[in-house]
Structure formats: C-alpha cells, structure tokens
C-alpha cells in the first residue's frame, strides 16, 4: 500500500474516532424549580467517552434533575451544559440524535407489540435500517422471544427491558439510564450491568441509581450527589479509601453510644452484630475493611468536609 493511501485510511479512521468521541461539560449548573425547590447547586462535571459513570445518591438528591438537564428536558436556571464545546441549547437536536435515554418513569404503548413499539421508537429516532437495529437490541435485552407479544401483557421487569432496548436503539454515543435495574430480578440485573459495561467501551454511559451493587463492579467513575450538590467524583477505589479507618463492627449492647451511624445489623449466634461508620470510631468498635456501600454511606452521613 502506498503512503498516501495509508494516510487516507488513517485520516478516515481518525475522523471516525472523532465522530464517535463525545465530551459533555456541566459548568456551574444550578436548577431551581418554579415552586422554589432547589434541586441542583453549582454542579460542575466533565464526562468524556468512553466511560461508564455511576451517579449515586439517595432519593431526592438531584440525580433525575441532572439527567433531565442532560437530555434537554429541563433548562438550567444557572450555568451551562456544553456538548463537544457547543452549548446544549444550540445543539439540542444533534445531541438527541446521539442520545439513548431511559427515564425513571416512562409510558409504553400497551396496544403495540414489543417489535412494533421499537419500530415506532426507531422512526422517532430517524433510524434508517430499523429492522437490523431492532433485532440487535432485542438480542441484547433478551426480548427476542417476546417480540410479537403485546406490551400490555409484559411483566414489570420485561417492560423495563423494553425501556432499555429503546434506549439502545441506533447505538447512541450517549446513554443515560435513570434507575435502569428497578424491577429486574438478580440474574437480569447482572446481565444488564454487563451490557452497560460493554456499551461503555466506545461511548459515555451514565447510570443513575441508589443501588450500590449496580455500580460497584462496572463503573470506572462515580459521582455521589446529595441535596443537589456533588459530594464526590472519582474512582470507586478512591471513595473506598476515604472511608478507611472509619468503618467498624461491634456487638449491640444497651450501652453502645457515641457519634456513629449504623449501616447494617446482622443477627448472629452471639447477638446482633452492627456495622457502623463514624468520623472517629468508638473504642468498642473493631475496625474493618470498608466496602463501597460503607464508603458511600460514610460520605452521605458525614458530608464531604467531614469525610475528607
């Protein structure tokens, strides 16, 4: 092969890679709802592809609001969101053409079959070769056998799978899943975790959840949010490191008092064994190695300043 040909192929490959690359910048974003409720406060983040980002936080922390802002479902009351350097408002259609979104609550057309619904969604997304795209997402979500079944006859978990399938249609570069594993059985949850991990190899996958297990094994980056503020952003191992020396176990007795937060109670032959997090562990607690759940709870209960 001659060098100009080589250069041409390399340039094509680079262009393709550039097209697949995506960067989302959230710059000092605030969101206050018309009723005065402040959902997000000075949130700043950057997400580059490929990455699988886990968004963790208790109910009402602001996760769904952040996701709605990212899909242009809401307008921030302050700050700016940029996609590849362009303000979101100026590239909304372009973003939506590259987006797969599973909201926390969504309706499905009960009158249609699974296949028909996905075909409808393909039309909305402007997918040309819908047949192939649908077959691919049906395979990925284990819905092949249910493709001719009316949506009204599906179980809650199967409906959730249809929701995930529509988000995956057309291999979008940005996948946003809001509580995607709700209603799924343990086997399905593992399957979907692997699916998200696979999908994140060449794009951004943002996974919002309050189930630690869902993000523990697959996410390369975690964002912990509470009361509209970002408490932590980094790798799961860094979060665990933060809780080192702050997690302990002890037997529950009547006089166990102090500044700690019990995170688990287990009945054992000797009584009730408690697992707790604290800024300073009480003397009766035996320090143990923290896991991600401990670290998350430590961060949520102590706040970012205390936790550091």
């Amino acid at each position, binding site marked *: 092969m001659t060098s100009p040909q080589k250069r041409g192929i390399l340039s094509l490959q680079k262009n393709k890679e550039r097209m697949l690359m995506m960067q989302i910048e959230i710059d000092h974003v605030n969101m206050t709802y018309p009723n005065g409720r402040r959902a997000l406060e000075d949130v700043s983040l950057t997400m580059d592809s490929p990455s699988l980002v886990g968004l963790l936080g208790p109910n009402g922390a602001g996760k769904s609001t952040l996701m709605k802002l990212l899909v242009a479902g809401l307008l921030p009351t302050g700050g700016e969101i940029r996609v590849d350097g362009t303000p979101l408002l100026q590239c909304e259609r372009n973003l939506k053409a590259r987006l797969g*979104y599973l909201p926390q*609550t969504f309706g499905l*057309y009960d009158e*249609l079959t699974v296949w028909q619904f996905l*075909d409808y969604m393909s039309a*909305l997304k*402007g997918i040309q070769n819908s047949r192939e795209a649908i077959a691919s997402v049906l395979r990925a979500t284990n819905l092949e056998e249910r493709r001719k079944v009316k949506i009204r006859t599906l179980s809650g978990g199967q409906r959730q799978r249809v929701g995930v399938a529509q988000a995956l249609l057309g291999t979008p570069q940005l996948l946003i899943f809001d509580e995607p594993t709700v209603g799924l059985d343990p086997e399905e949850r593992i399957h979907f975790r692997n699916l998200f991990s696979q999908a994140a190899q060449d794009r951004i996958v943002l996974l919002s959840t309050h189930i630690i297990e869902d993000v523990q094994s697959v996410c390369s980056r975690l964002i912990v949010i509470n009361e509209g503020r970002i408490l932590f952003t980094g790798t799961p191992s860094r979060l665990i490191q933060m809780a080192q020396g702050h997690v302990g176990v002890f037997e529950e007795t009547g006089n166990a008092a102090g500044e700690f937060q019990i995170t688990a109670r287990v009945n054992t032959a000797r009584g009730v064994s408690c697992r707790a997090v604290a800024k300073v562990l009480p003397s009766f607690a035996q320090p143990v190695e923290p896991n991600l759940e401990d670290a998350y709870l430590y961060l949520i209960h102590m706040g970012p300043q205390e936790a550091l």
Partner: protein
Amino acid sequence: MYKKIFRYELRRLLWNRVFLGLLLILLAYGWLTLIGEILLGVANTAPFSPWSFGSYCGKLLPVICAGELFFLTFFTGTRECRVLADASPVDPGRYAAVRLGAVLAGTLLLSVCGAALALGFYGAVFGWMGFASLAAPGLLVLVPAVVFCLGLGWMLGRINGALLYAAIAGILLVSQLPMPAAVDFTLGTFFGTFPKTLGTMDPAFTVPPSILWGRVGYTVAGGIPILFLWRRRTK
C-alpha cells in the same frame, strides 16, 4: 419516518376494543335514528333531504366528538411515552401534526361510517342516490364541531388528561340542552325548525348568516388553540 409514526398512531387509535365498541354504538344509534326519526322526514321535508340528513348528522355528532376526544386520551396520561419522544430528535411540531392527523383520520372514519349507513339506508329503502346534495349539511354539522373538539381536547389534554373525560361528558350534556340555533352544537334546532319557516314543502337547503357565523365561531375557537400549541411546540 413521519408516515410510519402516522401509521402506528392510527393503529393505536383504531386497533382496540373501545374503538370497536364506539363504532358499534354509532352504527346502532344511527340505525335507530334512521328508522325512528329520519324515515318520517324532519320538519316536513323528505327523509333524504339535506335537512333530514343534517339532522341525522347532528344526532350522531356527540358520539363522533366523544370518539375524537377519546382518541386524544391516547396522547396523555400513563399510556403516553412523551418523555421518550421528547428525548428523540423528532421535530416536535411535525410530530404533533402527525398525531393530530391520526386523530382526524380516526374521527373521519367514524363520520364516514355514520354517513355511509345513512346513504346505504337511502339507497336501499328509497332507491335514492343523489348523495352530492347531502355534502353541504354534513360538512356544516361535522367540520366546525370536529375542529372545535380537536382544539379543546388538545388544550385540555395538555393541562391534564382527566379533563378529556370531563370534556366528553360536557359534549354529551351540551348536545342534549336546548340552545339558540346559532350556537347549537349539533344544529338540531336549526334543522328541526328552520325549514318550516321557509313557507314551502321540502325547501331547498339554505343556511342563514347567523348559523354560518356560529359555525365559523366553533371552527375558530378550535383552531386557535391548535395553532397556538403547534407554534409553541415548534419553537
């Protein structure tokens, strides 16, 4: 792309038991109206006169409008997947237009079925086939009312899906109330009394300006919210 969306929306509206039930009610009610009232002719006119046919259309109108408002319930509430559509690159204005088109097509189908029943009846019972003369009263009754319900329904549906059911009840109630001819939703008063004032047997079909303005009023009242909401969606 939009053709496919239209096809699916129409399928959702028509391929269900409620639509089938509605169609059966319409045809049964239409048949009873034909053999009970229209067969004798309305206001001393022939049963197949524009006056009698207009009166027949007015009788069916509440069922047709209830069907139209029912179609609109498909775009609201838990059955709706608007949040998914909003996250897609589809043009919101065209998408709304396609969905309204599907509602209109469904309503048109109901109207055509009702009209076809009457035309079949006229042909079978009287051997009368001058159907072209029936277009004017049919359009006078149906078009303004259908546009009015579409606009009202779409506006109410965007506020709260439950309001559509209230609108169905409201339309059924208003259709039964005695109203001044100019604002009579079904034009029952007009078709039942106006021919008698013309002083001839089986008079030619004419519409006084007050009735025309009333129908224009209904059309505009329905058209304004459609235009307003469509422009807002496009923006």
